[in-house]
């Protein structure tokens, strides 16, 4: 590489001290290659999703939704905790708890993903920044996988945090917190698994739609429409037709797909899926259906970005 030069070298003396222009310095430090590049894209994705290092307007939506989700968990915790304190643990048995949380809050997750996930992909393509990534030691696959994991990490945080707020509320509300923890410790892996299921689902669908448009608004409107419109449409059609056909139509209720998996994980049916004909189908079928909705869109997204580099 080039030698260091001292273009306009020499001391410039003044009353306050001496300033040296040492000229251009070549970089002689470590270079970590693709792994560092992937990590940088991942970190940048997390920062974009949370609006960090950006103006206050960029923080409003992500933090607003996270606050809303945590707020739901907090209110549930307050109610359950208060009922436990006043009426004892049995009095709170019929109240919504961990297994119901993702059913109650799923629509907010979808809207959160719809408005925030496009931020990670659309501006890079619209502004042409993606070309600057791809001329560095990074492939299209590296880029999209790092971005996918970045939004997944934020979504996991948004999914798990309210559940742990709820758990703290239930532990604190119980007259015997230690006993409650001992008997309910299995809720922790269930919360982690159910949160991961909904986060992976919303992340993949939102990133797929964002991968096909340069406009964040188009992606957000399409996704909100998809999540909001399919629910009444499929619910109405499924109940009208009924039978096996109704069950299959009910499976296309995109809001319910991860909630059915949540129900399987907790072994309880949520309020939101209790009336859904698809819930009567075998668990393995609902799981395969869920996996198809994650793997197929994920593969389409990956192949779209993989083609950006030879």
């Amino acid at each position, binding site marked *: 590489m080039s030698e260091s030069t001292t*273009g306009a070298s020499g001391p410039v003396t003044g009353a306050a001290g001496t300033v040296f222009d040492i000229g251009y310095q070549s970089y002689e430090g470590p*270079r*970590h*290659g693709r792994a560092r590049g992937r990590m940088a*894209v991942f970190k940048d994705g997390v920062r974009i999703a949370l609006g960090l290092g950006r103006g206050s307007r960029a923080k409003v939506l992500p933090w607003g939704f996270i606050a809303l989700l945590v707020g739901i968990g907090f209110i549930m915790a307050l109610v359950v905790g208060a009922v436990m304190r006043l009426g004892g643990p049995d009095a709170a048995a019929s109240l919504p708890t961990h297994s119901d949380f993702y059913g109650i809050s799923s629509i907010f997750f979808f809207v959160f993903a719809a408005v925030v996930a496009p931020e990670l992909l659309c501006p890079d393509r619209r*502004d042409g920044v993606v070309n*600057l990534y*791809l*001329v560095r*030691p990074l492939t299209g696959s590296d880029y999209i996988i790092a971005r996918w994991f970045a939004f997944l990490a934020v979504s996991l945080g948004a999914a798990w945090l309210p559940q742990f707020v709820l758990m703290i509320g239930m532990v604190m509300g119980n007259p015997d917190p230690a006993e409650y923890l001992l008997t309910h410790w299995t809720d922790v892996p269930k919360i982690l698994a159910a949160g991961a299921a909904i986060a992976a689902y919303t992340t993949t669908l939102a990133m797929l739609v964002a991968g096909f448009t340069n406009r964040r608004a188009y992606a957000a409107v399409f996704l909100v429409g998809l999540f909001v419109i399919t629910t009444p449409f499929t619910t109405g059609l499924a109940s009208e037709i009924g039978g096996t056909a109704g069950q299959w139509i009910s499976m296309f209720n995109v809001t319910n797909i991860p909630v059915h998996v949540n129900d399987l994980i907790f072994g309880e049916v949520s309020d939101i899926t209790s009336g859904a004909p698809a819930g009567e189908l075998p668990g393995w079928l609902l799981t395969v259906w869920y996996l198809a909705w994650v793997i197929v869109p994920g593969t389409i997204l990956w192949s779209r970005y993989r083609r950006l580099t030879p």
Partner: protein
Amino acid sequence: MEPLVSATNLAKHYKDVVALNGVSFGIFDGITGILGENGAGKSTAIKIFLGLLKPTSGSAIVFGENASESISVRAKLGYMPEHDCLPSSVSAAEFLTHMAEVSGLPPSRARTRAADTLRHAGLFEERYRAIGGYSTGMKQRVKLAQALVHDPQMIFLDEPTAGLDPAGREDMLDLVRKTHREFGISILFSSHLMADVERTCDRIIVLQGGELVQAGEVSHFTSETESVFLEVDSNHEQLIAELEQRGIVVQADRGGLNIEGAEASVYDHVRDALVASGAPLRRMAPQRRALAELFAREGDEDMSGGSR
């Protein structure tokens, strides 16, 4: 001298469109201009060298590695695209730090490199402002800085003066020259403006319709076109007749005469023709033609007209 980058029978076809048609050339240390009209294949060649496109046939070798197969070689390269490539909502310092990290630099080193590079690009004072508020000239500097931030061995500049006013263009060309002469980084400079290439580059590669037209040292092309410019006060026609009698090729040019060749015998003939015609000499000077004249075709305003 081994080329840093070389193309061997390099071809790229997009269905029926031939962007590059089996061109072969080498790019050596220094500033190399790749010149051609829009659609000549300049950007395609650059994108193949950067690994963004796979050639239809032939090979593109960059620092001894196949450009479309080696990912690690890209750490040695920098790229300044022609079109917009900057996010508007982040500061130049943050953007360059991120780009340095993507190139494999540790975060603390990336921050230092970003600040240093922005200082060299003349944006040190403005580095914490959002890029969206920058002028076109400042954005071009950020584009160049991001290409340099990881200290590559070679950078590819695709039309770096596009959209700049004359002063901004001059500043950018100065920065490009400084990048090689002070920073020691080799440059491939793509342009359709002959004047920019002539003033900045050591070597040129001329593409036209995907074919290689010329390649070599800029000084070689300009020395080939040396001529003598002659102005007389009167007896203009007699002087032309006397010169033509002596086998000298003469062209009227800007009120004077332009005589092909600058060897000693031409000066002898000019001296004799001046004496024979009795034309009073006002001015005689050797002249080097511009590259634009060498490649200019009739009616072609595009390649030579940038500085006018």
